C-alpha cells in the first residue's frame, strides 16, 4: 500500500466518523446525568434540515450553523420539559422525539430536497470533535460541575440532599446532548454529503447511542469506539474494491453486535456494571421523595 492510499483512507475515515463522535459525546454527557435520550436520530435530522434550509435561503454558513444549534436547543428543551417536569417515560419520549424529528424534517425539507449547495470543509468540524472529546473528558473528571453532573446521574436523591439542583443540571446536559446531535446533523447535510434528502442520517443516531454503551460511558473510549466503527466500515469498502470477498451485511450490523457483546460483558459482573453505567439512568426524579 502506498502512502497516498493510506492517507486517502484515513481521510475518508475521519470524514465519515465525525458525526458519530458529535452525537455520541453529547449523549454521553446526557446519560452521565442519568437521562436516556433516544431521540438522537430525530434531533440529527432536524439539525440537518434546519442548517440546510437556512443556508439555501441566506447563503450564510454562520446563520445556518446558529439556527441548526437553536433547533437542537428547542427540541431537546421540549424533551427535557417532558421527562423532567412532567416525568414522562424517557424511553417512550425519546422514541417519540425520533419519530417526530423524522416527520418534521421531511415536512420542512420538502421544497428544498435536490437544491444544490456548496459544502463546507469538514476539517473544521473534525478538529472541533477532537477538542470536544478532550473538553468533555476534562469536564467530567476534573471540574466541580462535572462531578455534580456525575453525582446527579449516580444518585439523584443524594445529590439533591446535598443541595444540588438535579432538574437544572439535567436540563443543561439534555440541551448539550441536543446541540451536539444537531451539530452531527448539520455536519452531515453541509459537509459530509452536502444535500438535503429525507432520512439522510440513515440510522447514525442509533449507532451513536450504541457507541455510548460500547464506550461504557467514558469519553476517550467513545472516541476510540467511534473510530473503530468508522474505520471497519471504510476498511471493508477498501477490501471490497481490491476484490476481497467479504460478508457486507455482517459489517452493517457490526456496531450493534459489538455493543451487545460489551453489554453482555459488563452485565456479567455486577461491580463492573456499577462502575460503568450511571446508576440513576432512566429513573425519573421527583423532588419531594
Amino acid at each position, binding site marked *: 500500500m502506498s502512502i497516498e*492510499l493510506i492517507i*486517502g*483512507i484515513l*481521510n*475518508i475515515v475521519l*470524514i*465519515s466518523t465525525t*458525526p458519530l463522535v458529535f452525537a455520541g459525546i453529547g449523549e454521553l454527557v446526557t446519560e452521565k446525568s442519568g437521562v436516556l435520550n433516544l431521540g438522537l436520530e430525530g434531533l440529527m435530522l432536524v439539525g440537518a434540515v434546519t442548517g440546510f434550509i437556512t443556508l439555501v435561503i441566506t447563503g450564510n454558513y454562520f446563520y445556518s450553523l446558529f439556527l441548526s444549534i437553536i433547533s437542537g436547543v428547542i427540541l431537546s428543551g421540549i424533551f427535557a420539559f417532558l421527562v423532567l417536569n412532567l416525568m414522562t417515560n424517557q424511553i417512550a419520549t425519546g422514541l417519540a422525539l425520533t419519530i417526530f424529528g423524522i416527520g418534521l424534517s*421531511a415536512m420542512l*425539507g*420538502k421544497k428544498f*430536497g*435536490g437544491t*444544490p449547495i456548496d*459544502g463546507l470543509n469538514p476539517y473544521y468540524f473534525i478538529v472541533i470533535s477532537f477538542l470536544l472529546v478532550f473538553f468533555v473528558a476534562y469536564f467530567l473528571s476534573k471540574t466541580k460541575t462535572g462531578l455534580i453532573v456525575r453525582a446527579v446521574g449516580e444518585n439523584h436523591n443524594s445529590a439533591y440532599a446535598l443541595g444540588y439542583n438535579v432538574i437544572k443540571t439535567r436540563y443543561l446536559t439534555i440541551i448539550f446532548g441536543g446541540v451536539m446531535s444537531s451539530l452531527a446533523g448539520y455536519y*452531515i447535510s453541509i459537509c*459530509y*454529503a*452536502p*444535500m438535503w*434528502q*429525507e*432520512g*439522510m*442520517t*440513515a440510522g*447514525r443516531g442509533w449507532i451513536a447511542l450504541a457507541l455510548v454503551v460500547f464506550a461504557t460511558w467514558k469519553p476517550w473510549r467513545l472516541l476510540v469506539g467511534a473510530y473503530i466503527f468508522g474505520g471497519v*466500515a*471504510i476498511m471493508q*469498502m*477498501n477490501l*471490497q*474494491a*481490491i*476484490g*476481497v*470477498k467479504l*460478508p*457486507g*451485511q455482517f459489517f*452493517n450490523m457490526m456496531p450493534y453486535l459489538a455493543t451487545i457483546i460489551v453489554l453482555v460483558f459488563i452485565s456479567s459482573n455486577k461491580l463492573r456494571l456499577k462502575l460503568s453505567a450511571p446508576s440513576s439512568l432512566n429513573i425519573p426524579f421527583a423532588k419531594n421523595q
Partner: protein
Amino acid sequence: MLRKILTILSFLAVISVSAVHADQKKIGFIYIGPPGDHGWTYMHDQGRIYMENALGDSISTTYIENVPENADAVRAIRKLAASGHDLIFTTSFNYMDQTLEVAKEFPDVKFEHATGFKRMDNVSTYSARFYEGRTIIGHIAGKMTKTNTIGYIVSFPIPEVIRGINAFYLAAAKVNPDVKIKIIWNYSWYDPGKEADAANTLINQGADIIVQHTDSYAPCQAAEKAGVLAFGQASNQEAFCPNSHMTSIEDIWGPYYAAKAQAVVDGTWSSEDTWHGFKDGMVEMSPYNTKLLPLDLILEAKNMETAIENGTLHSFEGPIYNQAGELVVKEGEVADDGMLASMMFYVQGIDGEVPQ
C-alpha cells in the same frame, strides 16, 4: 330558513361529490425511499404524477414512502388493499413475496410489482431494461477512462444490479480491453453518507469514473469534488455535479402507469409481464454533457441508442463467457430474457465474486 337551505345544499353537495367519486379508481404506491431522493423513488413518483395528470378525475392516488423490504411491507401493502385501492404498485424488487402474500388475500385488487418475476392472476410484473442504458455508459466509460479503473457502487446482489454490472463491463471492455472495474456493495439503496464514502474510497484507489446503482446523488457529488467523472442514476443529476456528470440513465414510468391505470378504469386489466427499454421509451439517456464528452463519442452513443431500439445491437451479444470460462451465450446469439431475468453471475473479466 337560510340555515335550512344551507343544510339542504350542503347535503346535496355531499351526495354529488360522492357520486363523482363512486367510480373513481383508487391507486396506491409503495415506495422504498422518499419521493425527494432524486433517484429511484423520485422517478416512480414522477410516473404517479404523470398518471394523475393523464387520467384526471377518473383516479385518485396515494403513496406510502420509506417502506422497508421486510414484514413491514406486508402491512403497508395490506393497508392500501384493505382501504379500497383498486390497483397497487409495489416499486422495489424485494417487495416480491410480500406483494404475492397480500395479493392472495385480496383477489379483486390488482397488483403491479416492479422488477420482480413472480406473477399471479392479479399480480403483474414490470421493469425497464436499464441494462440497455448501462451498455451506453459502459461504452462511454471505456473510452473516457485514463486510469483504466472504473469505480462501481452497488446496493444489493440481485439480478437487476448484476445484469447492469455485466452490461456495463461488456460494453466497456469491447472498446477498452484493459478496463478494470472495482465494485463496492453497500447493502443499502439509500444512505448518502455511505454512498459518498464508497465513491471516495474508489477514487482513492485510482478510479477516474464513478458509476452507481444506488439511489442518492452523493456519489456524483463526491466525484465532482474530487474532479473525476460520473454517471447519474435513475434521474438526470446534472444539477448536482455539472462538471463531472456525463449522462444518467433515466427511468420513465409515467406512460406505463397511465396505461395500466386506464386498463383498470376500463376493466381490461390483465396480469402480464412488461419489460420495456429504449424502444418503448421506458429508459432514456439524459442529455450528454457536451463540455466533457467529445462530439464523436456523443454521436456514437446516440447511434448505439438507435441500434438498440431497432434491434441491431443487443447488450448481451455472444460470445459471452462466465468467470469460470464457460460459454454462456454462443457467438451470433443474444442472451434470452430468461437468462437476463435470473442473472446471478459475473461475466469473464470482472474481478471478485458475486456475494451470496
